[in-house]
């Protein structure tokens, strides 16, 4: 018997997933819906939106209102959804290619708007779905199908980008730290504004195999040994900083828009009195 929260938040009839054995995405999904359970989110009023990629297949398995959109566009769809109905809790899951490459423009502008959406980027350092090409988050020097001699491009620190773009909640975890994912997603959903959460996850089938990262377990161990909690970091380590990286309160977009509506209606009423 699966745990009760999985029964509540998963479409068990759609399992097994399409994900490879040892892929991090199953663990990530479990941690995300665990956050839904922690917050006791009403599935009828929760929307999970994704783009295209292995990670973006997640909404097919999650038993809330779900939208599997086009490659890179999930955040733009989510913007329309949230603006149209503020009462919906809107969460987006996106791959590193989906969010940072083809969808990069939507990402930075959603951060800038500070709209109350929670974005979880499942960063497996490559394009899993299309069999291992490099993404903007593939480390320089790593091998990918389109970087057979090693990736010559610099990679992004997406958390830095999100923060610089105006996101008011920025956090990072790895799949190894699966409980931390739940904590951060919970906090992210609770936070009023645009919440950005990066999850470093493993794609053993492509990135792992091409870069001799060993078994899925070895990849998880790597995540464990190469990350450091923000509380313990002095900022100088060569490690993945995890935890809540940044948080600030700022006016949220939908709230701001509601105020604007009040003003527009008042003005219209005044104008018709004249």
């Amino acid at each position, binding site marked *: 018997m699966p745990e009760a929260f999985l029964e509540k938040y998963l479409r068990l009839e759609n399992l097994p997933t399409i994900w490879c054995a040892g892929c991090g995405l199953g663990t990530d999904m479990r941690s995300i819906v665990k956050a839904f359970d922690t917050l006791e989110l009403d599935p009828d009023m929760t929307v999970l939106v994704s783009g295209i990629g292995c990670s973006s297949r997640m909404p097919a398995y999650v038993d809330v*209102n779900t939208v599997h*959109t086009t490659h890179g566009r999930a955040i733009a769809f989510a913007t*329309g959804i949230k*603006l*149209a*109905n503020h009462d919906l809790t809107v969460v987006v899951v996106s791959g590193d290619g989906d969010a940072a490459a083809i969808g990069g423009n939507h990402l930075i502008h959603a951060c800038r708007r500070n709209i109350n959406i929670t974005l979880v980027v499942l960063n497996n350092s490559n394009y899993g779905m299309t069999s291992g090409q490099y993404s903007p988050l593939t480390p320089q020097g790593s091998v990918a199908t389109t970087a057979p001699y090693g990736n010559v491009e610099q990679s992004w620190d997406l958390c830095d980008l999100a923060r610089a773009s105006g996101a008011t909640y920025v956090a990072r975890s790895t799949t190894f730290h699966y409980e931390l994912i739940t904590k951060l997603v919970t906090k992210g959903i609770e936070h009023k504004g645009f919440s950005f959460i990066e999850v470093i996850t493993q794609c053993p089938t492509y990135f792992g195999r091409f870069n001799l990262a060993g078994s899925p377990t070895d990849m998880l161990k790597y995540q464990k040994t190469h990350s450091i909690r923000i509380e313990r970091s002095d900022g100088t380590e060569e490690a993945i900083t995890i935890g809540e990286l940044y948080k600030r309160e700022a006016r949220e977009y939908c709230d701001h828009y509601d105020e604007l509506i009040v003003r527009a*209606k008042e003005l219209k009423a005044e104008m018709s009195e004249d």
Partner: protein
Amino acid sequence: MGDARVQLLQGNEACAEGALAAGCRFYGGYPITPSSEIAEIMAFRLPQEGGKFVQMEDEIGSIASIIGASMAGVKAFTATSGPGYSLMMENIGYACVTEIPIVIVNVMRCGPSTGQPTATGQGDLMQARWGTHSDHPAITLAAASGQEMYDLTAKAFNLSEKFRMPVTMLSDAVVGHIRERVVLHSPDEIGIVQRKLADESADEYVPMDVDDSHIPALANLGSKHHPYYTGLVHSGKGFFTSKPEEVEYFIRRLSLKVEKHKDELIDVEELGTDDCEVCLVSFGVSGRAAINIAQRMRDAGKKVGHLRLKTVWPFPDEVIKSIAAKCHTFVVPEMNLGQLKLEVERAACGEAKVIGVNNISGSMITTHEIYDVVKEFV
């Protein structure tokens, strides 16, 4: 005081008012000449009605945002011109496959690429039909006046709601910017159509459960039925399928929605098509010059007719066929290199000659240009 419903409006203003009258409460857009006034007016007017306007980062985001808003149950639209329309294509296909009602207004400019932004043209006729990849249905209307910018925009909303699909309304730089008398018909006069919704009191909802109409009921986001929308080919339950028979059925059904209701969708304006020897066929703004010629030549006793398509897609094959059986020549004036002409030829099946009059200069096609051709055939 005159009737407040009769106003002197710019075509783009009329379009915005038509959308509001039809119940539109969301606009996602990106500025582009010659459509920008629509965004500007919506930014001003929507909040007055409790609606939302968002200027997205590009047209891909614009169309994504309106599909999202519509999924959440709010009637939504965007307006653009050629370059922006090109950027929207992928997600127009997505709205076809997920069967989400949205309206796209394309205020056409002249030429390919950046073309002539401030000049008029009608070069996006085929793009409105085939712009997004693979087989998909299309409903496209074409406005020739300020009044039609109002009426047909409202109609586009109704059709999108009824057929659960994107509807494009084509206009152009001239119709978008011309100021004309427009009667602002009330929502009652328009007859507002709302999408057929999933029954929230029922225990079960099968997303693709369709009756003879081939149009399934829609579960807005925020539904107890937990809909799953995907651009993947999907089966009855809404999830991905690769079973050949389900794939075949799904793709065919999307087009059947339009095919089956063609009679209801076709909307044409006819002058003398019963007895004409030469029939002008037009859509949108070029119809204004065409009808002028047809009327004047008729007044002079010539058997000239005019057919103007207010619905361009689906194409009125049957109407063309029946006229082809009577006339000997079609003359097709249009501000492109012969896109409508191709369709008229196809539908006429060799029963009548089809002659094009094409102006791609960026200025309005003139009555003289058309007359010079028509007179050769009467």
